[in-house]
């Protein structure tokens, strides 16, 4: 554990620096300097990336599931067609 105040930083290895920019009542704002090759993600983003990879496979790997889905859901319309100026044409 490392204790830091606003304006102070920690360094990871040779080229990654994490600075505490601001501390409010419930949140801490961090500034991160790292090489472009280093991926910086919130922990919840990393979990979400896995979910999104899985979601992107639904249509290609499980087309029968989508067909079932359409049958189960019926044709009830969505908000998008009513509110988007111009959607895509098939």
């Amino acid at each position, binding site marked *: 554990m490392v204790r830091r105040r606003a304006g102070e930083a920690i360094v990871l290895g040779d080229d990654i620096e994490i600075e505490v920019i601001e501390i409010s009542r419930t949140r801490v704002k961090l500034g991160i300097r790292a090489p472009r090759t280093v991926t910086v*993600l*919130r922990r*919840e*983003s*990393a979990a*979400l*990336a*896995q*979910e*999104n*990879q*899985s*979601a*992107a*496979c*639904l*249509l*290609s*790997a*499980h087309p029968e*599931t*989508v067909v079932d*889905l*359409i049958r*189960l*859901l019926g*044709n*009830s*319309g*969505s*908000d*998008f*067609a*009513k*509110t*988007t*100026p*111009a*959607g*895509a*044409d*098939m």
Partner: protein
Amino acid sequence: MVMDRRLCLVSQHFGEVEWDPASELLLPSGLPGFEDERRMVAVEIPAQRPLVFLQSAERAEVCFVALPVRTIRPDYELTLGDEDRIALRIDEDALPELGADVLCLALLMPANGGVETNLAAPVVINLHNLRCVQSMGSGSPPRRYRLGDGRWVPVC
């Protein structure tokens, strides 16, 4: 004279998709896991509503299947964090109305032989400027829903 310029992509799933550039969705940060997907098109097929397909405007093979969140949970209320509001360009004191100001789409994913979705991470579209962000921590728990017997049921 203004030319009617339309864009086209041969989608892996739908074949040829054509759209007006003005209807393109802009994702300033992409989606987690798809950070380079900055432009997407919402494809609706009348016979398959309420499904919305989020097709990448650049990669033919990238397409998400989504549903408006209130088709899954009718009492869903959106909570937007500061960073989401900045990305969507929604004022901090504004109360965007679902369906009128913003559209919230839950991405569907295969799981355990069926379909599940995470309502805590919808794709939020500002309908006034078509900017999008995948919001994290939106809505109230439970977050994950599964489609079973034609109904969405919370699983955790």
